[in-house]
């Protein structure tokens, strides 16, 4: 629909004006976003500065952000006080294994719930949503008992197996698969492809943005999980980082410098992972449409 040029209207300066307004708007947005980002980043600034200050200076001058005394002692001390390296490896292994396995199993289940018609489908979905909402405090004792009865206390399988599937993951994948065009698999089924093949060749590649989202979410959740490893593991060598770092929180006193130093180090892999994933995730969503 072409605009018809009307006499007496200066389209050129109108366009220039509009461009200038656009740029002005962009600059305004950038300024606003910097302010907003500052708000979002503030606690991290505190964590970072707290990790390079001595405990004494943190205590004496709590209301200043900029370090009055600068020290890297905390970063050295965390390796001495707890088996930091070993716990970091445990965290990578636990979070990594759970993420890979659970994304796979959750995708399969979400796909089935979304694309197949079978008795019990709606009930299964409703029950799934129900389980999303239960706080861990109340299932602690029965869960602990099951793990204990399986003899899985202080074992890697005890840590990983119960986490190999999650209601949230299935929910997310189901939402994604349901939004895909309805008759996608039909052509393949007509051709006689097996269900596994359909899933692997057609559905899985399309699911990339959802898989990345779920993977990211799962990785973060398990990397930062404090209570679950504490339930299953008692030996310090087998703990992951969050409970490991909790050692710096005494009953009466918290060693902030050490705690923050450890937390900063624990944070870095997750930030890297997010940077890695964010671009492809968002663009992937746009092209395949997780709407």
């Amino acid at each position, binding site marked *: 629909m072409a605009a018809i040029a009307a006499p007496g209207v200066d389209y050129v300066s109108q366009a220039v004006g509009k461009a200038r307004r656009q740029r002005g708007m962009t600059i305004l*947005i*950038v300024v606003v*976003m910097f302010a*907003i*980002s500052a*708000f*979002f980043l503030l*606690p*991290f600034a*505190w964590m970072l500065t*707290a990790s390079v200050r001595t405990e004494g200076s943190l205590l004496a001058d*709590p*209301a*200043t952000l900029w370090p009055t005394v600068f020290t890297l002692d905390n970063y050295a001390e965390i390796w001495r006080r707890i088996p930091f390296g070993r716990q970091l490896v445990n965290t990578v292994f636990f979070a990594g294994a759970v993420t890979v396995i659970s994304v796979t*199993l959750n995708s*399969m*289940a979400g796909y089935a719930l979304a694309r*197949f*018609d*079978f008795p019990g*489908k709606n009930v299964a979905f409703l029950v799934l*949503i129900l*389980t*999303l*909402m*239960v*706080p861990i*405090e*109340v*299932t*602690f*004792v*029965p869960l602990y008992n099951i793990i204990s009865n399986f003899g899985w206390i202080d074992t890697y399988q005890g840590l990983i*197996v*119960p986490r190999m*599937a999650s209601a949230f993951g*299935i929910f*997310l994948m189901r*939402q994604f698969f349901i*939004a895909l065009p309805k008759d996608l698999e039909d052509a393949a089924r*007509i051709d006689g492809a097996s*269900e596994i093949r359909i*899933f692997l060749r057609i559905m899985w590649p399309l699911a990339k*943005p959802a898989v990345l*989202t779920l993977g990211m979410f799962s990785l*973060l959740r398990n990397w*930062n999980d404090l209570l679950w490893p504490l339930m299953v593991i008692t030996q310090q060598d087998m703990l992951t980082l*969050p409970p490991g*770092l909790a050692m710096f929180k005494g009953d009466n006193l*918290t060693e902030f410098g050490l705690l*923050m130093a450890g*937390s900063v180090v624990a*944070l870095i892999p997750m*930030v890297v992972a997010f940077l890695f994933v*964010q*671009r492809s995730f*968002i663009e992937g969503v*746009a092209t395949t449409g*997780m*709407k």
Partner: protein
Amino acid sequence: MRILPAANSSRPSRGLSGSKAWRVTSKTRQAFTAWMFIAPAGVIIAIFVFWTLFESLKTSFTDDSGFGSANWVGLANYVALLSDPRFLNALANTLVYAAVVVPVSIIVALGLAVLLNRPNLPFRGFFRVAVFLPFVTSLGISSMAWWAMLNPHAGIIPAWFEVFGLSLGNGIQDPALAMLFVMIVGVWRDVGFFMVMYLGGLQSIPKELRESAQIDGASPWKSFWNITWPLLANTTMFVGIMALVFAFQAFDQIYIMTGGGPFFRTETLVLYIFSTAVERYQLGYASAISWVLVLLVFVVSLFQVGYFSKRTVQY
């Protein structure tokens, strides 16, 4: 979902007429395949989630106190809840918290997504990371940072306010303000995740739709409200449910920043459950409270799903 019959497959003879037999088989095949795909995840969830949930439901009908006999008391725990002022207080706090945090999170997340979706925005990547970063770290740790920074007498934020002659008063220890601060931290934490969801949703809206609206002379606000917002319905439903679940389960930052105080002003249901189960060992009662919470979230989620499924978009 209908599956078209293959051209040259042979049909089993089960004494039924040809096409009916095929449909029966395909339904069975669907069900079989579906359950096979669900099985691995299903087994895990059945054992570690359903079973423990069921156990906790059973416990809610007993007077379990951690050790020794747990006697069946029927609905006594649930009845007791109705007249428990601390429960009603926690319920009210939880509802207030959710009623504020959920809409605010959605609006802020969507707003940020719209801002960051602007073409040719410099520093976009930096902003994205900044807003998402709270979601990346453990809430237990970041709550400690917030607690330290918001300390009314020794914290950085009140100190900065005082430089400008403003005062945050008793801050997180003020009965009137404490809830506000834990809400802020709650929104701060989750908004990045929702923003990323919305960014994806926004980018999947065909640009032509918005552009044609602009050519028609629609204002940015109108085009947003009439085109963008309805097309984001799926995302909003998902974000809405997740925000609701997160809000109803709010615990970490409240536990660390205010401990549920001052005098229970910020105690949410999960905090009350924690106190009842872990500090008082009243497992039966704690389970009952948990199940009330579960049902509450479930009911509200059903409303959300109902509201949005009428509006979901299929391409």
